[in-house]
């Protein structure tokens, strides 16, 4: 086995062992995700609780984008009763899942895994991904027009 093949095997091994989490959402992703949350039904009450787990998104950006909500940093396991939880991994999403809680992933892979309800991409254009299984498990739905303009998985 030559050096290149060894490096490739090591790289694959490292990727497989790495926790399934993406980079922290940037401000634009947070803004788009916050706007997407406006299409969730049932609607969030005023002052709804929103939790941001470490590495998921800048808390200040989430608070800025969701000015009507009560945003706080916290652990996924302690997000009971929250309207939305911004998570950094599928494992966190699974801990946060509960009735009425919308999990917002920082990576589309979290939606692909059926763990996060929603994830967004902003480049090259705004694209919104929703896991039907996760949404159903959370007991939430989305505006019917919105659903026709997004990618459901």
């Amino acid at each position: 086995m030559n050096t290149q093949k060894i490096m490739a095997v090591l790289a694959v091994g490292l990727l497989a062992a790495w926790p399934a989490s993406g980079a922290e959402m940037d401000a634009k992703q947070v803004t788009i995700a916050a706007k997407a949350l406006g299409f969730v039904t049932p609607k969030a009450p005023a002052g709804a609780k929103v939790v941001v787990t470490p590495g998921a998104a800048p808390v200040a950006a989430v608070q800025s984008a969701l000015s009507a909500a009560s945003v706080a940093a916290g652990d996924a396991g302690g997000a009971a009763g929250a309207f939305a939880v911004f998570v950094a991994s599928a494992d966190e999403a699974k801990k946060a899942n509960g009735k009425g809680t919308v999990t917002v992933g920082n990576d589309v892979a979290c939606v692909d895994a059926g763990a996060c309800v929603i994830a967004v991409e902003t480049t090259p254009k705004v694209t919104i991904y929703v896991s039907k299984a996760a949404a159903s498990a959370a007991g939430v739905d989305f505006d019917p027009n919105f659903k026709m303009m997004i990618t459901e998985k």
Partner: protein
Amino acid sequence: MKMAMIMPSRLILAAATSMALAQGAMAQSMDYGSLQDLFGEPVTTSATGKPQRASEVPATMTIVTADEITKSGARTLPDVLNRVVGIDVLQWSSTGTDVGVRGYNQGGNPRLLVLVNGRQVYQDFYGITLWSSIPVQMSEIRQIEVVKGPQSALFGFNAVSGVINIVTYNPLYDNAGAADISFGTQNFREINAFKTLKFGNWGGVRVSAGGWTADPFDSSRTPLTNRFYDKDGQRRTASLDSLFQVNPDTQVGFETTWARQSEFALIPSGGLGMGSYTTYSFKGNVKANTGIGLLEGTIYHSNLKTNGHYTTSSSQINTDTTIAQVQDLIKLTDRLTSRVAGEFRENKIDSWPVKGITTGYRNYALSTMFDWQASADISLTAAVRWDHTALLHTGPRPYPFSEADYDRSFDNISYNGGIVWRVTPQDSLLLSTGRGVGAPNLIELSNSSVSKPPPGQLIISGNPNINPSITTSYEVGWRHAIDSINGFGRFSVSHQKTKDLRFINLASAKLINGYPTFLLGDNLGSSKAWNLEAELQGRVEAFRWNLSWMWMDTNDDIKIANVLIGQNFEKSNARNTVKANLGWDSGPWSTDLSLRWQSTTYRYLEIQAGKTLVEIKPGLMAQASVGYQVTPDLRLSLSGADLLRNETQLSSAPKAERRVWATASYKL
């Protein structure tokens, strides 16, 4: 001319304060503002019936935004549309206009479907659009969607050359209002206002009223035109629209409108006409989010009364149109969306001058649409519609025809297909085709015979045996996003062919059951045309611009001398049209310049001595506007049209004078 919309400041404020989590009611009706805010571009349902981003529709579409309308300074819909590539505006007088898409424009253009929030507002008596009677104020328009090419499979009759859908602010979702006052040359004076009033998250209404008056042009007056120029052009409109959230999954809406206009314009044969028109409408709508999709039912009725004076005649018309529509829009799978719809339409026209005879038709239609996202880069759309049309006639025998002639029905199939291939993140290829149906209008079908005419007497009558005009179109388009200019380039080639063109034939009498007859509707040939469209648009710092060119090559195959029907599309379709729009914004100031150049065309003008072919060589034309935002709520602007000369030959009607007007707009 695709434009990123900038919402009025009050709407931005409203959006910011409500911010995402409290976005409003469950939206069975599409919340254009919130979806546009989310995706960063205008959204529409006008291409397929399905909500889509403007950049993803399988049709050549331009969306003119509220911001563009405001900055253009335009006080009429045709003045706004004149900026769009592929749109041709015929300015007959200070207020009378006709609008065409990709050529084939004429006096009383019957080839365009115009909608306000999905409600058809063209007038069935001749399939024409009375632009001044459309009951919306410029400030209450969220966006104007222009779809080019036949769209009958989605929208039905009259969607032959294209569809223009005017979308207003929504009474349930939008907090908007404005009062405008304008004064200008031709003694133009206008006042109007609109306001949305919301009742929490469960209901809202939008009220709107306004009008303008303008003197006719003084140019090129003759004793003949003076007969028509004695009256001012006038417009008065009022409307009330409402939407209520009756439960989390159901919305109910009601709308009523009224409008009156009088204006000078040319009629289809090229003759002069001064008409007054009064319309009213009622509409009810229910939308429900169900387990089988987004169900919608709509029923509306509209009435039109006209009083027209022409070169050698006059007329009074009363028409009634009732339309009932149902549709289901459902996302069948993650990649497949379908729309199934049914429509009933009844159109009737009363006889004149003797009452008691009604002519018209009942139409029954079924349609379906499939939109399939085949892969991340390829989407396909297919739509088909079947129309069954049965004529109706009540009253005495319709000489020279018999009741049997009106005991007729005919069927038509229309379709649309489109493929969008996103070749790269910046490039997309569009292939599309469409078959549109131009149904016979009520005048073409009407008959007012009240007794048996003497043998051999010349009769003028509508024609129950007339066929619909069928337009087929094929188009290939390429669009390239250019990030360095925050814009795009676009190029398209299309071919359209219309068979069974319909004309008023008052020159070549046909012998029908022993009576020589002039037919108000006669199939007299076909026409085909190639179109090229190229467009480049950008926005760099404070500058926004759009440059476009349309080339058109037309070939008519008409079975009668052009002069007899007053139409010659080979001569009236402009071979080249170039448009350039340039805007510059700085602080409270906005400026807007729209230039147009069109190659020489020829149109018929009917005068008492007969028809004459008028050369129309307008040269370079300009619209411009300068606006100043005095306060967040108050905007002042000075605007003008046809600015480069005192008088410009814009059509076969007398020359158009320069128009200048000042507007004060206050947000409510």
